[in-house]
């Protein structure tokens, strides 16, 4: 029995096989899911519809047709020019200086036929029941893009930072509490300058 003085080492050669087996199991049972998208807040449901006295110039109607064609202010438009159009509409600032509601930070053309100020500018989005969801998302993306561009511009002007970067930084877990509080105020302020006013008109229920 004097031969058992040295312990034989456990063969680790099959370890790799075991690990591979586990790896393949996880590869098969899991999926890399996306968890990003466009955030939107639906309006509260109110039984009696509120009639808001809105002037026509403050509303930008966008209609997405059955085949994905766009109607902006009763004129055909392409998706590519939508962003610039929406931007010009929101940033118009139609009320002249000295009057109530004048938008001091707007850089638009102050066209009296377009919106008064960004707080009043409303985008009315309407789609057909047959409209493809992809097109709808593309339009929503352009709308958010137009708002983000304007917010970025204002944030650059005020804080020398992009709004979208500030927002991203706010949601990053490494950001300290003080920085977060500071960012929250700034984000809130910028959002207040250009609030996301998108109204979606409800479609008729499907008649079955």
């Amino acid at each position: 029995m004097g031969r058992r003085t040295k312990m034989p080492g456990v063969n680790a050669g099959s370890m790799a096989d075991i690990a591979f087996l586990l790896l393949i199991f996880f590869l098969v049972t899991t999926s890399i899911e996306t968890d990003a998208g466009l955030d939107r807040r639906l309006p509260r449901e109110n039984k009696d519809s509120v009639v808001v006295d809105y002037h026509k110039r403050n509303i930008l109607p966008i209609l997405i047709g059955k085949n994905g064609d766009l109607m902006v202010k009763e004129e055909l438009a392409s998706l590519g020019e939508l962003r610039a159009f929406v931007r010009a509409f929101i940033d118009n600032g139609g009320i002249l200086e000295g009057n109530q509601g004048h938008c001091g930070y707007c850089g638009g053309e102050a066209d009296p036929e377009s919106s008064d100020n960004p707080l009043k500018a409303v985008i009315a989005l309407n789609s057909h029941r047959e409209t493809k969801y992809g097109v709808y998302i593309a339009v929503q993306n352009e709308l958010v893009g137009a708002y983000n561009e304007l917010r970025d511009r204002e944030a650059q002007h005020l804080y020398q930072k992009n709004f979208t970067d500030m927002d991203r930084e706010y949601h990053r877990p490494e950001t300290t509490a003080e920085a977060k509080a500071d960012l929250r105020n700034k984000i809130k302020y910028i959002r207040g300058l250009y609030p996301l006013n998108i109204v979606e008109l409800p479609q008729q229920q499907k008649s079955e």
Partner: protein
Amino acid sequence: MSKFAKKKSGDLPAVSTASLPDIVFMLLFFFMTVTVMKDSSLKVENVLPNANEIKKLEKKDRVITIYVGAPTREYAKVYGTEPKIQLNDKFANASDVGDYILMERAKKPQELQNVLTTSLKVDKNANMGLISDIKQELRKVNALKVNYTTYEGDAFNNVD
């Protein structure tokens, strides 16, 4: 100097495979951390549209997911090819969405019940009528925070 040029045997030493398990484990841990378990198998086509102005959903446990799309091939015989809603593991009508949200909301801890987001994972070929119906249902149960979940990419790719 002969210290450094001592051994010079002819045959090559074998490559050690001892670190192979470590490498594989590393891969394993990578996949374990970046993926999530499938909680329900998809019964609908789910090619999400692209968008680039997107925001990340914050926390997984605050999200209720609704899938919409045309039934996959194996279910198309029974359920047809029109886009359908999938809640958990079964097909549903737009009118079931409200109940589903309330049920899922009740399952969550009290403190999260008011901060839930509904993630709409909708196939890009679905039509807006169904989405609009879902949104009406969501409004009825006061689930107002919505995220149109998308892939990151150029939004113009959605239109062909």
